[in-house]
């Protein structure tokens, strides 16, 4: 199962836990498993069946495409963070 590092402002959903585990082969499945375990995650991270534009996802230290289909491995570490725009 992948390890999800919970952003500080979402730790209220996990009872203060910084790290939780979730099952899924891609980012979308991970979010669905988080929602099953900790209701409220989906609303924070998803809209229109995809990751919110304001949210970026890092899997194993690599910034992906930002979408639900980004692959997640069995031992992956997943971070949700604010999306960044450059100049």
């Amino acid at each position, binding site marked *: 199962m992948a390890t999800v590092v919970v952003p500080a402002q979402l730790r209220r959903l996990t009872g203060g836990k910084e790290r939780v585990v979730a099952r899924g082969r891609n980012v979308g499945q991970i979010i669905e498993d988080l929602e099953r375990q900790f209701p409220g995650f989906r609303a924070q991270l998803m809209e229109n069946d995809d990751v919110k534009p304001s949210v970026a996802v890092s899997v194993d230290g690599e910034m992906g495409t930002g979408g639900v289909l980004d692959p997640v491995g069995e031992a992956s570490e997943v971070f949700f963070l604010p999306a*960044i*725009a*450059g*100049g």
Partner: protein
Amino acid sequence: MAASTNGYRVIGTRPIRHDGVDKVTGRAKYGADYAFPGMLHGKVLRSPHAHAIIKSIKVDKALALPGVKAVVTSADLPELADKMEQAGEQALNLAQLSQNILARNKVLYDGHAIAAVAATSPHIAEEALRLIEVEYELLPPVMTVEDAMKPGAPILLPKLRNKDEGPDKPTNVATHIQFKRGDVNDGFKSADYTIEREFKTAMVHQGYIEPHNAVGIYNSDGHATIYCSTQGTFVVRALSAAVLGMPEGHIKVVPAEIGGGFGGKTTIYLEPLSVLLSKKTGAPVKLVMSRAEVLRGSGPTSGSTIRCKMGCTKAGKLVAAQIWMAYEAGGFPGSPVGAGAMTIVAPYDIPNILIDAYDVVVNRPKTAAYRAPGATNAAMASESVVDELAEKCGIDPCDFRIMNGAKEGTPQTAGPPYRRIGYIETVQAIKNSPHYKSKLEGPNRGRGVATGFWFNVGLQSSSIVNLHTDGTASVVIGSVDIGGTRAAQAMIVAEVLGLDINDVRPLVADTDSIGHTDVTGGSRTAFATGWATYDAAQDVVRQLKERAARLWEKKPEEVTFSNGVLSAQGEGVKPMTVKEIASRLARTGGPVTGRATVNARGVGPGFAAALIDVEVDPDTGKVQILRATVAQDVGKAIHPSYVEGQMQGGTAQGIGWALNEEYFYDDKGNLRNFGLLDYRMPTCLDLPLIETAIVEVPTPGHPLGVRGVGEVSIVPPPAAIANAIYRATGVRMTECPMSPPKVLKAMLKKRGGAENQAAAAGR
């Protein structure tokens, strides 16, 4: 310092840019150069008030003026839902975007657009603006984050809410972001030295030379073409379509040459107005901002207030950082405070951090991106405090940074560990520079060091490589060329295909002629578009191998390609150059075109370090830059001259931000310095030749190891200058700009304090 070619034939060399001749001879076509038969000229009416309700707008008198063909207001635009949409690299609230283009019910800053006129000449259009009657109900302006966050502050956006304050409380705080690692209280307990200071930076503008412009042509078939200066044609298309309520595919955006953007041209202002006015009049309509409009009505970057507390042990190990930061978003939410929060201690490995960041609306222009948005404000604070801690510990400022510097595996502020990065190497490059090793002598002189971080982004790019029958090639991209993009893309094609750089012609295409490509911004173009171009050129190689295999009756995998020569083992094989096989394309299957698209993953962040010597006039407080060196990790420099240009350009803008630039508002919220005489950007007389040290730590996974280079060099200069001023005068500056009055005031305060102490001692 020279970049290496590292076995490359073309990459790492310095050819003359393909667009150079057109640019130096004046043939290059910028947005304002476009003209069409029957073209009308548009002008925009802007609010003279910082904060007011629009009671009514009467346009009858303006419409009656001979030569006036149309007037538009927000009533001519669809009212959009209050919803976030992805637009390239940024998420935008389209309703607010529309209200920024033409105010609806309320004006939120001096310069906010209210109406637009199309007329047969610019002068008639200007005259018509004076005939539009707007009735306002004035509201108190809210100009600072401190005032905006006070209980009972006038509310700019009645519907605005945030999660902290709940759904029932109107607020000016759009967002609160928090990052937390470890326990800062425990961290500070273990610190031997703790420094806490408050910093302020002023709102500043990108200062691109070319004002915003657009020519819109609406056809009776419902399609429109926009010619404009932009960093992203596809973002102009998407946003204009949304604001106008048109299908995206009904708009074609043609990129003009761009006279600077620095992030400020990643959104829209005039583009939908040109289409709207064209639709109303049936004629092409051109709008060009004046400099005053650019300063009053486009998107500068945020001013900020940052309270930064950091602690370290006597041995110089950083143990805790606690930061409170609030950024001015302008009239609508969307400051880069999130990026500021994630960059402020990004260069360091600190076990305990707590960062609270606030995006705050104020009656100033809606901010737009500016080179490493949010990071320069942040580094002014953290890099000043780090300098002070290094001094407390008696450790050289470079060594202190190297001791605490982030490396592969260090957690970033938001948590993910860094992959291979070049922070330590970048600081080392400064330490090893002739500048650092030189002595700085003379009174009132000081030397300062600071460093900076920027994420860089990946995103989507498309590229097409056409091989022509004479063995030359063209590369077609959707990335607007701001800092040498054409040359870099052509060099990648020349490298892969073994061609001479002058045999590859680069072309920046319109939105109908190339696949989706995100903005030239976020330091992404050489990285992502370069990746697509590399893959497209490899697609050409793959096809050439197939053609050669056909000629030699071999399998494609038996054909090799090296340095532009196709070959294979066996009898009857006469190796062929690309030029030779190009002439035989017709008989081997037809034209060869390579194509590739990427949504680039695995982007590598960039680090920069600045070393700056200053002399401070003790009588006036004027700071003169004596010498400046910038080091930057660029992954791999495709064209070192243009990489150095980015490093120098960012440093020059950082120096301007540090010393002189600021939006200056009066107590009514009116901008008082809306020209370049009063908005003081640095000129060549203010700057020495900026020395550069290119550091090349390749980005893992990228075929050429490229990192973004366009932004991070703007980050360190303000803090480096503040640190240099301290060494010159003994005064710690905590406010940008460090303009003569502010520096003089700080010096006088220090002298006054010293004199008082002396007087007290004398008593």
